[in-house]
Structure formats: C-alpha cells, structure tokens
C-alpha cells in the first residue's frame, strides 16, 4: 500500500455527483421564498429534500440510476493512487440502524430547535402596523417657520419611542395645506441630525396629543439646512444631501389634516427633492434603512426591504 510519511489511510474521495447542484438550487429557492412567498419556500424545501437524498445515496455508494463504479480519475489527486474498493455493498443491519438513529435524532433535534428559531427571527418580517400620530392644532405651525417637533411614535410604551421631526408649514395649496415634514434620522447611519439655525428654547411649547402623549414644538429661525454631528453629513432645507457620507435625502413623513390637527402618517424615503416648499417635487420611495441606496446604480444591492 502506498504510504505518505504521516501514515494516511488510502482515501475514498466522494464519487462525482451532480445532485449537489440541485440541492443548492433548493436552498436558494427556500431563501428567496422567505422573502417572496411561502409557496416558493415549500417548493424549495421539496427540491432540497429530493436532491439531498439523491446526493446522500451517491455518497454512500448506491447512486440512484447509475452504476456503483468509481470514476476514472479522482477530482483531487490524493496521496495514494492505490485501488479503491468502491463496490456497492448491501447495507448491513448495524449500518441501517445507525443511519436510522442519526436520522431520527436529527429530525427530533430539528423539530425542537427550528420552531424557536423561527419565532425569534420572524418579527422583522411581519407587517408592522403603525398608527397615525397626532401633532397638535394647525396654529402651532405658523407660515414658513420651522419647528422642531418631538413626539411619541407609539403611544403608551415609553420614552424609547420618542422621535423628532423638522416641520415647516408652506402655505395652502389646491389639495390642502402644504407641510414639509423631515425626519431627523440621518440617511447615512441613523444619527440624529441637527438644524443649522438659531434654536429658541425659551419659546418651546408642550401640548398633549389626542393619545395623551407629550408633543413638544420648539421654533428654530434662520434655518440654512441640517447637518449630522456623527460623520459630517449635510443637507439643505428640503433635506437633499449637500455634503458627506449620506447616500440619499432625508426621509419624510406623510401627513394628513384631521379636524384641524396635523396628523403624521408613515415614513418614506426620498431620493431627491426638486424645487422648494409648496412646489417641491419629491421623488418618493418605500422606506429604506440608513445607508441603503434608493437610486443610482447602487440600488441593485437593495432589491428587497422588510415590511415596515
């Protein structure tokens, strides 16, 4: 027998097999289906199981639909060129029992671990229902004046839901009052963006929303833009990026006027805003996380977003 200095036993390299390709396709189907639809997951799981079974049969020397003869040349030249006994042998009772024990144990293990993992990982994929946020009567927002507004995104769950938005009333339009409502979360990595202007803390007002949550408005004058203290991102008064690492404009909130009060809707991402104030043309997108491109060639990196 051939022998290398370390005393290798002659190796049995796995037989060449095409089934891993199908297995891989099945896994890919499962992952894609997690995003798109449960039917695709089911199909992917079926493909994975079928091809996985065929692959294992190949490896154990009982290839389905083929002879048990080894290929002419091993895929990787091994240290020993000696003959391999690769003939298919009937499964012995102990072999079958050990295989069955491992398979059953694996199945039970999977049954016990996969549901908790599923429960732990599933919340991000569920639709998050957000209720509208009341921001007080319209007279809190004088014409063409910026206000820093702090509010609670979700009522009755504490200060962790505090959010800030920069709001300016632009005047009436055909379709109702026009507001510019810009989120303070930087589009680079989510740090709180600051207004470049004079903040008049002494004129800050706090009211109660209809949900009995505090809403605080603070005037800020001579606003020339916004900038982020973390990494130096800068934006203009419409939220367009003017400098620094942010990848798009600041996110905005949808809004509605309900019984003379300003009400905040869902957040959305903005690629760019042309024009200002009432005449702003906003290129809207679904809400993306900070650092994720919504336009330009880099948007191919972010084809899917979880529901928000």
């Amino acid at each position: 027998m051939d022998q290398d200095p370390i005393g290798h036993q002659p190796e049995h390299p796995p037989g060449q097999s095409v089934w891993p390709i199908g297995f891989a396709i099945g896994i890919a189907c499962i992952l894609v289906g997690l995003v798109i639809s449960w039917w695709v997951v089911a199909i992917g799981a079926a493909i994975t199981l079928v091809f996985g079974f065929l692959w294992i049969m190949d490896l154990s020397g009982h290839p389905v639909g083929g002879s048990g003869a080894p290929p002419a040349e091993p895929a990787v030249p091994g240290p020993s060129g000696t003959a391999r006994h690769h003939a298919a042998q009937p499964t012995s009772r102990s072999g079958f029992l050990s295989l069955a024990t491992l398979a059953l144990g694996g199945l039970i293990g999977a049954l016990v671990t996969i549901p908790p993992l599923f429960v732990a990982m599933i919340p991000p994929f569920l639709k998050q229902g957000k209720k509208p946020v009341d921001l007080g009567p319209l007279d809190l927002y004088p014409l063409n004046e910026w206000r820093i507004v702090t509010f609670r995104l979700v009522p009755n769950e504490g200060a962790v839901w505090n959010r800030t938005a920069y709001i300016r009333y632009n005047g009436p339009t055909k379709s109702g009052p026009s507001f510019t409502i810009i989120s303070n979360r930087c589009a680079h990595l989510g740090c709180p963006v600051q207004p470049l202007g004079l903040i008049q803390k002494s004129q800050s007002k706090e009211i109660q929303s209809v949900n009995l949550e505090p809403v605080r408005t603070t005037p800020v004058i001579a606003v020339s833009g916004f900038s982020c203290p973390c990494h130096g991102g800068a934006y203009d008064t419409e939220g367009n990026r003017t400098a620094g690492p942010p990848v798009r404009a600041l996110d905005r909130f949808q809004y509605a006027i309900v019984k003379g009060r300003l009400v905040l809707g869902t957040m959305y991402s903005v690629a760019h805003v042309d024009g200002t104030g009432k005449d702003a043309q906003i290129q809207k997108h679904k809400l993306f996380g900070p650092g994720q491109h919504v336009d330009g060639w880099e948007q191919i990196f972010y084809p899917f977003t979880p529901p928000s």
Partner: protein
Amino acid sequence: MYPLDWLEERSGLVGAVKYFLFRKVPGDVNWFQTLGSATLTAFLVQAITGVVLAMYYKPDPDAAYESIKHITNDVTLGWLVRGMHRWGASLFIILMFFHMARVFLFGAYKYPRELNWIIGVLLLILGMLEGFTGYLLPWDQTAYWATVVGINLNGTGPIVGPFLSSILRGGAEIGPDTLARYYSIHMLILPAAIIALISLHLYLVIRLGVTSPPWSKTAAGSPWVEEEEEEEPARKGLVQPQPRNGGRA
C-alpha cells in the same frame, strides 16, 4: 491522599487533572503563549461579574437605567463589579486579538491545528457579538445611539442587509422588545455558545499539544540537531503524537 484516591477511583477526574497539569510542552515555549490563558481569564471575569450584575439589573425599558444607577451607587462594591465588567469587556476583545496575532505569527494554525483556528475565529465573532449586545443594556443615550448606528451599519450590506438589521433590531425600530431580546442573547445564548466553543478549543489544545516558537531549533520540520532516526521528522510538531487509524502499518 485518601480523598483524592477516593475520587479517582470513582470518577477518574484526579487522573484527568494530573494529565492536564503534567502534560509535555516544548522546553522553549515563550511568554506570548500565555495570551490564550489570559483571554480565558478575562472571559471568566466577565462571566462572574456578569452573573453578579444580573442579580441586580432589570431588563425593562423603564427600569434598566435606574437599576444600573442602583448598582453603581447603592449596591456594596457595585461600582467595582460594574467597572470590572465594563473594562473587562474591552480587555477581553484586546487580548483575543493579541492571542490571534500570536497564533498567526507563530504559525500555530497549521496542520493539525486548523480546526482550532476555525473555532478561534468563531469565538472572535461571538465575543464581538457579546460586546454589541451588552452595549445596549445600560439603556442610556450612548447605548441607544451606538446600537442604532451599529445595526444600520449591518443594514448597508448588499441584498441581506435590510433583513439582517431587521432581525438584529427585532422589528423595524428599536423598542422595548429589542432590550429584552439583547438581554437574552447577551446572557443566555452567547455565553452558552462561547463556553461550548472554549471547551472544544481547550480540548484541542491539550490533545494536539503546544507548539514551539518559530525560532525554535527543535521546531517541526527541521532535522534533529543530533541523533537517532526513530521518529520521523514530520511528527516533531506534535508533542503528544496520536497514532492515526492504520498507524504505520
């Protein structure tokens, strides 16, 4: 001694400890090779101080920060335990990197220690995750914003980024659930995984033996300075050579 004999006869543990203490190591081992034990000690300090902190910490969003203030100001030596945990975390990561660098520069990741290196890399990742999840627990401004930015960093990765950040947050926004999730990960899942991997890491170190430093004259591969040819040169790196299946026959 009789108690030890009693224990040994009934469990074999004394023999195991003796095997560990008196195993052979090369004569020319270097002080840098103590970095692994130093990292282990740092981890043990974190585990013990963490257990003490867990007795007083409240993982509820309304009570978390207050409980930390309570630990720091009211609990006897609470300031010391909290400080050791906070600084020990940095020490753990730094020592891990030094240990990793030492292993790399000594070539101690080569055959037959590749699996040990892989386990070490996994331990590095788990250690960093421990740091990341633990950082949120004080629930103050630093904790909150550092976690926001850290999660968003993960979110910028292509294709899976948005989902990864959603999973890390436990939803679309950091909320009360995030704190509970991170507490569970920080003190249940990750320590269990780290302890399991460290045990495997140590088992492999004991089984495979300690390497000589690269400048050693008797290192694996170089011929014996003197004498007999009864051992093949390639086995010299293995201080306790374990014959493989089939041996030499």
